[in-house]
C-alpha cells in the first residue's frame, strides 16, 4: 500500500470510496498528489492504467512498436499536463483521450489522407434490406453456436483481428473501448470528445460490419 508522507485533509478520511483492488488510493486521490509533484503517485496511476492504454493503442495501430511509443508519449503528456487537469472528467477518460488522440494522429500521418476516415465509413459493410425493410438476404445460418466451438481457434482469432483492422479508425476505437475494454458510452464519449448518440451509432455500425465479416468466415 502506497502511503504518501505528506498527505493531509479529507483525502484520508474514512468516507472515501472503496479503494481499487490494487490496494492503493483511488485515482482522484493519486491525481491530487501527482499534481503536487508526487511522481510515485503518478507511477501508481501508470501501473493501474497502462494495460488498457496499451490495448487501445495496439488495436488502433496494429503495431506493437507504435503502441509502445504511444504509451510513452501519452503518459509523459499526462504528467506534463497534469496541472491542467481539473477533475471534471474521470482521470482514466482524460488519459484515454490523450492516448486515442495520439494514436489517431499517428495513423493519419501515416496515411497522409485526412479524409480517408469519413470515406471509409461510408463503405462500412452491413445488412442489406429490401425497399420495404425486410432482410434482403435472410441470415438463415445461425453461426453463433458454431462460433463457440471455434472460440479458441487461431484461424478465427486472425480473422477477427483482420476484420477489426478494416474498420475505419474512429469506428474501431469506439468498438474496442466498448466491446473489448468494457467502457461505458459516457466514458467513451468523454474520452473521444463525441456525443453519446455518436458513440452508439459508431458502435452499432462497427458491430454490423464485423458481424457481416464473421458471417462470411462461418459461411453464414
Amino acid at each position, binding site marked *: 500500500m502506497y502511503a504518501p508522507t505528506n498527505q493531509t485533509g479529507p483525502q484520508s478520511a474514512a468516507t472515501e470510496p472503496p479503494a481499487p483492488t490494487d490496494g*492503493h488510493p483511488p485515482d482522484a486521490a493519486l491525481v491530487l498528489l501527482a499534481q503536487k509533484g508526487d511522481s510515485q503517485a503518478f507511477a501508481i496511476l501508470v501501473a493501474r492504467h497502462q494495460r488498457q492504454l496499451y490495448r487501445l493503442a495496439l488495436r488502433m495501430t496494429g503495431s506493437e512498436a507504435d503502441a509502445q511509443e504511444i504509451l510513452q508519449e501519452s503518459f*509523459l503528456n499526462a504528467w506534463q499536463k497534469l496541472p491542467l487537469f481539473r477533475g471534471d472528467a474521470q482521470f482514466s477518460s482524460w488519459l484515454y483521450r490523450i492516448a486515442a488522440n495520439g494514436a489517431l494522429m499517428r495513423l493519419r500521418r501515416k496515411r497522409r489522407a485526412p479524409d480517408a476516415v469519413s470515406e471509409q465509413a461510408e463503405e462500412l459493410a452491413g445488412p442489406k434490406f429490401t425497399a420495404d425493410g*425486410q432482410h434482403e438476404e435472410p441470415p438463415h445460418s445461425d453461426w453463433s453456436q458454431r462460433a463457440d466451438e471455434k472460440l479458441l481457434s487461431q484461424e478465427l482469432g486472425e480473422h477477427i483481428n483482420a476484420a477489426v483492422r478494416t474498420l475505419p479508425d474512429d469506428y474501431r476505437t469506439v468498438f474496442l473501448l466498448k466491446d473489448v475494454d468494457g467502457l461505458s458510452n459516457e466514458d467513451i464519449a468523454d474520452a473521444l470528445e463525441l456525443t453519446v448518440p455518436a458513440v452508439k451509432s459508431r458502435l452499432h455500425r462497427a458491430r454490423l460490419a464485423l458481424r457481416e465479416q464473421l458471417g462470411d468466415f462461418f459461411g453464414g
Partner: protein
Amino acid sequence: MVELIEQCSECVSLLGDYLEGSLSRERTTALETHLSRCMPCITFVRTYKKTTVLARETLAAQMPRELVTSLQQFLKGAIPGFTCDSKKGDCGSSAQQPDSSSDTKKS
C-alpha cells in the same frame, strides 16, 4: 397501444439500445413482438451478440512484460523521481496482476 415494428431494418437499428437495456418499455415490447415472429431477425440478434463476445474473447491482449519494463525505464528517464520497481511491487499492480483499471473505469 404499442406501435408495432413491421420492418426488419427498424428492428436491426434498435438492437444496440435494446441489448444495452436503454430502449423504452414500449419500443422493447414492440421489438420483442417482432422478434417473436421473425426468424431471420432472431438469427440476426444471436449473431450480432456473438460478434461482440468473440471480439472480447480474442482481442483481450496482454501487455508484454518487456513493454512494461521499457515504459517504466522511459518514464524514469523523463520524470524526475519516478520510481516504479515492478520486482518490489512499488507500483502495486505490476505486470503479472490482472487489470485493476476497470475498477475505476467502469461505472
